[in-house]
């Protein structure tokens, strides 16, 4: 059987949910413009929403309250700034408040180099609020795991997707070395750049561990600390903005669990993501990551 891409996997999971499990999918313009990069099937139980980016999330929450376990698609992550109210203030807190969950599967799609608003990544925002699971799957296997975790629980899930991953077929595995010079932790599309950087650094003779962080919240710190305990230092690499970002938060959590080890954060910069190539402020690329590693190995902070 031919291996499926990530987009095909999402499509397959979605079709099964909508056709066989009475699921629902809400989104704007989902049945047009490439069916969300080929990730949405042409089948029943799809609701084309009007351009209502605040009420829309409320419709999905209402559907979850009615027991339909809706998939709510946001074609760009910045739309979440409008749609987030119902997710974080209603769906997320219901479980703790009433002991009754409101399971909504929020597919929030990020990208790079799409200008000042559409390029932003903001999985750090749902991480901040109690009551949500936040995952950033990049591979077919990771997406299946994400979906299973959603279906086996009744709390809402924020899924930070990245357009660059939709054609991926291969799984990504951690590579942990004993006495590593550095361990790189990657989030979302920073993981691809992390792997490129690690390859180059290994060619130079450095011992580099690479660890993939798919589950941002709850964070499996136990799994992640093994690598830092075996390395001199670590860097968490993310595609969001730096301040109050996912990378800084996770770096802190790792340092607490691995006393004596320094773990740094590397993200996009605290600048607008412009259209012109020089100021696109993309996900840290392999060159930037390598530069950061060199600084860390010299005992310097990578983003000074």
């Amino acid at each position, binding site marked *: 059987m031919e291996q499926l891409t990530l987009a095909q996997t999402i499509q397959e999971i979605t079709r099964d949910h909508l056709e066989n499990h009475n699921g*629902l999918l809400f989104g704007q313009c989902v049945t047009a413009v490439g069916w969300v990069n080929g990730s949405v099937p042409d089948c029943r139980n799809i*609701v084309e929403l*009007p351009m*209502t980016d*605040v*009420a*829309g*999330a*409320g*419709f*999905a*929450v*209402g*559907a*979850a*309250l*009615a*027991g*339909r376990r*809706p998939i709510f698609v946001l074609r760009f992550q910045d739309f979440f700034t409008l749609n987030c*109210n*119902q997710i974080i*203030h*209603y769906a997320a*807190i*219901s479980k*703790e*408040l*009433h*002991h*009754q969950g409101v399971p909504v599967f929020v597919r929030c799609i990020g990208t790079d180099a799409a200008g000042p608003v559409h390029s932003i990544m903001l999985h750090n925002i749902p991480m901040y609020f109690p009551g949500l699971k936040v995952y950033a799957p990049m591979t077919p296997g990771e997406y299946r795991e994400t979906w299973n975790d959603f279906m086996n629980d009744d709390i809402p899930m924020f899924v930070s997707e990245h357009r660059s991953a939709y054609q991926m077929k291969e799984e990504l595995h951690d590579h942990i070395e004993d006495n590593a010079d550095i361990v790189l932790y990657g989030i979302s599309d920073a993981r691809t750049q992390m792997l490129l950087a690690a390859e180059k650094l290994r060619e130079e003779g450095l011992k580099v561990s690479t660890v993939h962080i798919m589950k941002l919240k709850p964070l499996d710190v136990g799994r992640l600390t093994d690598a830092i305990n075996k390395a001199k230092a670590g860097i968490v690499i993310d595609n969001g903005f730096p301040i109050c970002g996912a990378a800084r938060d996770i770096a802190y959590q790792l340092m607490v669990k691995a006393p004596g080890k320094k773990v740094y954060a590397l993200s996009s910069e605290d600048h607008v993501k412009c259209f012109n190539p020089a100021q696109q402020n993309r996900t840290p690329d392999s060159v930037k990551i390598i530069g950061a590693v060199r600084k860390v190995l010299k005992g310097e902070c990578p983003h000074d």
Partner: protein
Amino acid sequence: MEEKRTSSYHTEENALSCIADDTALRIYGKIVRSREMEYQVIKAVEEKRVIAPVYLTLGQEAVAAALTEFIHGEMVFTQHRAHDIYLSLGADLGKFRDELLGLESGFSGGRAGSSCLRYMEDGIRLIGHHGLIGENVPQAVGASLASGECVFCVFGDGSAEEDYVLESLGYAVTKQLPILFVCMDNDLSILTKVAERRSWDLAQVASGFGMESRDLSDCPWTLYEIFRNWDRKAPLLVNVRVCRERWHSGIGIDGEREWKRNEIVREQLIRKGLEKEVMQIEDDAREEMDLLWNN
């Protein structure tokens, strides 16, 4: 221009005569029990037994009393001020009391309180809001769309101004969803009157969206007829002029109510020859709520 804040605005003078006595008395019973329960809440706040904020429905309860005559297990989405709906639906009052007292035995373990109602037992599906006014309106729309069922949604004149509420009304029309929207128009968003906040009229806006709508004062008998005649095939919005008796949050009083619906209703029933029953209802309600809160 027609004065809209009057006790008789768009009400039917003879509406009570079309309603069977036992129904009318049942509605009055809910009004009185709601009020007696609120008095006990006030006492508990005064005595500092209840310390979390309370959002009293005192003065507005006639609407819930009539509305709940037509709710039989359907999902009901309410906002912060909905004690009267909780009671009128027949939800467990011990759990309500305990919720306000912050006890584990409350309907949400004492965690949610007065403004975040949730009661999903005894064939009742009451889903309150969590803090953002009007958030229950898109939820009602989503729930009806997802279930194909008739849904009830109650919100305030302030909430009506939230952009997502207006859009939700529009989408309910687009999808022809069987939702009864009731706006409890007490002419107040906290302390700001409608005229200071907007120039438009909610019932007219709903009509503009293509939704059937009504705008009237809180006569439970007229409301009863309107709710009874709703065919549950398309959305209906009813803007009801009500008088809030106490503060937005808490138990204080700012001044006289424009009208006292409970007294008007009482008079009407007595005029109909139901004085004995009225007195009995009042005695029973007082006793019931005293027992519930002070034992």
